[in-house]
């Protein structure tokens, strides 16, 4: 691999001193030291990223190896080996992210539609900024808000749900007295991933060919029919990949979960009780400051598993985006 790109070398023809130079003959490419230094340094930066990521993988694996052979006595709780310890956490991570996604995706699509197709044209961009502001709030602030405002606010609703709809398995009692349940966490996570899904869907809805929209309207479709005929089918792959990116965010989100949830190491789908499965990231955040010995390795190993899960999710979403790019001809 060369460090610079050069124009393809053309054969240098011998030139008669008397004749004028033929125009097609390019001048010899001069390799200035400045060029070499500059291109070399940009290449170094690129390679540094490669090595950094390799380092992330190698160090995490190296530090998590002791966890896989950890003894029963070294693992917190009553798990017998590493995998029985980490399984409830994996379940909690996926479950919380799933709840967040169920809440956030329909809302985000509607908000994106509002900004692109319903709001007055002049307001649309500022409304987009307003939704983006949600992404600017640090996660620790969402954590504080979740405990201080959201949990007390939804607790009466939870009590009502358990009393009147307790027959529905997800709403089984007894209800949590604090409102700090997995459903509250799901709501907070939904708020946090809403802006990214909204802004990506917005971009995609704006790319809908104008002619498709106008053709639908010209055939007498109402605005909603136009959206279902032209906008949504065009944007479907984009919505899917935006949701997957949001899912990736929700899986890795730490502080809001760590602060809002009252955790325990169980597997349970029930939404409103005080016993909730916790997530990998929150478990690391809560236990790392006091961990020692193999405990540290176990937490790092669970972090490695989280990394693998988010990697797979992001990879799928990228693949969807790339496949769409190949077809659409927009680029």
């Amino acid at each position, binding site marked *: 691999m060369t460090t610079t790109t050069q124009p393809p070398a053309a054969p240098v023809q011998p030139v008669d001193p008397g004749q004028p130079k033929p125009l097609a003959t390019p001048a010899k490419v001069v390799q200035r030291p400045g060029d070499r230094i500059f291109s070399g340094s940009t290449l170094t930066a*690129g390679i540094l990223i490669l090595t950094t990521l390799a380092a992330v993988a190698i160090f995490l694996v190296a530090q998590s190896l002791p966890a896989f052979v950890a003894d029963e006595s070294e693992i917190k709780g009553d798990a017998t080996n590493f995998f029985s310890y980490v399984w409830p956490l994996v379940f909690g991570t996926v479950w919380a992210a799933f709840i967040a996604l169920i809440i956030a995706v329909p809302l985000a699509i509607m908000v994106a539609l509002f900004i692109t197709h*319903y709001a007055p044209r002049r307001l649309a961009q500022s409304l987009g900024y307003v939704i983006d502001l949600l992404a600017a709030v640090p996660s620790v602030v969402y954590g504080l808000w979740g405990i201080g405002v959201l949990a007390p606010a939804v607790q009466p609703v939870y009590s009502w749900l358990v009393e009147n709809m307790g027959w529905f398995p997800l709403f089984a009692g007894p209800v949590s007295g604090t409102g700090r349940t997995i459903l509250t966490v799901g709501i907070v996570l939904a708020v946090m991933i809403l802006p990214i899904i909204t802004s990506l869907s917005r971009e995609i809805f704006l790319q809908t060919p104008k002619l498709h929209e106008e053709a639908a309207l010209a055939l007498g479709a109402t605005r909603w029919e136009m959206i279902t005929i032209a906008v949504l089918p065009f944007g479907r792959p984009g919505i899917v990949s935006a949701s997957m990116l949001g899912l990736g965010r929700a899986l890795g989100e730490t502080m809001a979960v760590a*602060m809002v949830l009252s955790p325990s190491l169980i597997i349970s789908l029930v939404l409103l009780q005080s016993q909730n499965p916790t997530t990998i990231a929150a478990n690391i955040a809560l236990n790392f400051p006091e961990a020692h010995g193999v405990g540290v390795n176990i937490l790092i190993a669970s972090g490695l598993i989280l990394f693998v899960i988010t990697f797979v999710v992001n*990879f799928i979403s990228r693949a969807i985006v790339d496949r769409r790019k190949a077809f659409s001809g927009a680029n």
Partner: protein
Amino acid sequence: MAITPAPMTSALKAGKLHRFTPLYIILGTLAVSVAVFAMLGAVNIAGILIVTAVLFVLVYWLLSLFVEGSRKAKDRLMTSLVVIAFLIALVPLISVAITTIGNGAARFDIDFFTMSMRNIVGEGGGALHAIVGTLLITLATSIISVPIGILTAIYLVEYGRGKLAKWITFLVDVMTGIPSIVAGLFAYALLVLFFGEGVRLGIGGAMALSVLMIPVIVRSTEEMLKLVPNELREASYALGVPKYLTILKVVLPTSLAGIVTGVMLSVARVIGETAPLLIIAGFTQSMNYNLFDGRMMALPTFVYNSYAQQGTDAQAYIDRAWTGALALILIVMALNLIARLIANIFSPKLGR
């Protein structure tokens, strides 16, 4: 010969709702729900608004169904749902803003910005140690990430061809998705090799945040460099300017505003990160100006720690947590605002 009287309404408007009808329905349903809540003796603004919204959607839909038919009614139903969805999305934003300002104003005083928490139990004290820590860690992060990020973007846009460039692009995508806590674990796993178990250093926080910041800078800078028209580069080459000078004197100045905006937005993103700092920078109550020695507090970890480790006078700790949150939000908002201003004022006008 019977003369039928001319219809009172115009044919164009027949069978349609008046344009102010939704407004009347909103006022009507609002009045109804206020009356219902007043009769029940409960004043609950959230409840009133929710009942109003549900009633409005129903009445509006039914009315349109009878007057205009099912297709138009469905359109109106979806319109009202879409608007309501947007309003719902605004609720958390407004709620976060109100509670943070309301709870944070109590301790937003001189002490908060001039004192650390050393030897403080209960009331008083401040977050100077955390603010200094945030500044130092963010500065170190920027010093590491900005050159690497911008140079990599230049490589990808101006030089990179073939397999290596593809791999770097792919890995930058992967890095974008690394959960922040895993970045913290990475810094720990690296530093533990040199400093032994239980290592807590400010510079480790900077390394962890760099992992999160570099891909953001690469992505935004790449976008900006791609916006520079090729004609500019070719004109420069035609004048005999070497490639590196073309990039330094033509390409970079043209895209400078966009690059600066991207850097500021990436700083705004990492300055609020809590999880990696919790892992590798740790908690302390004292000032620490040295990134390479001992634990270092930052604003986000200060907020978390104040909340999680409430002392004897719990309210004082909670107040400090909210004030820290307020300061953090103000910093992030200011960075975002400045970034947008730079983008709007200095960006070259390139269509779009």
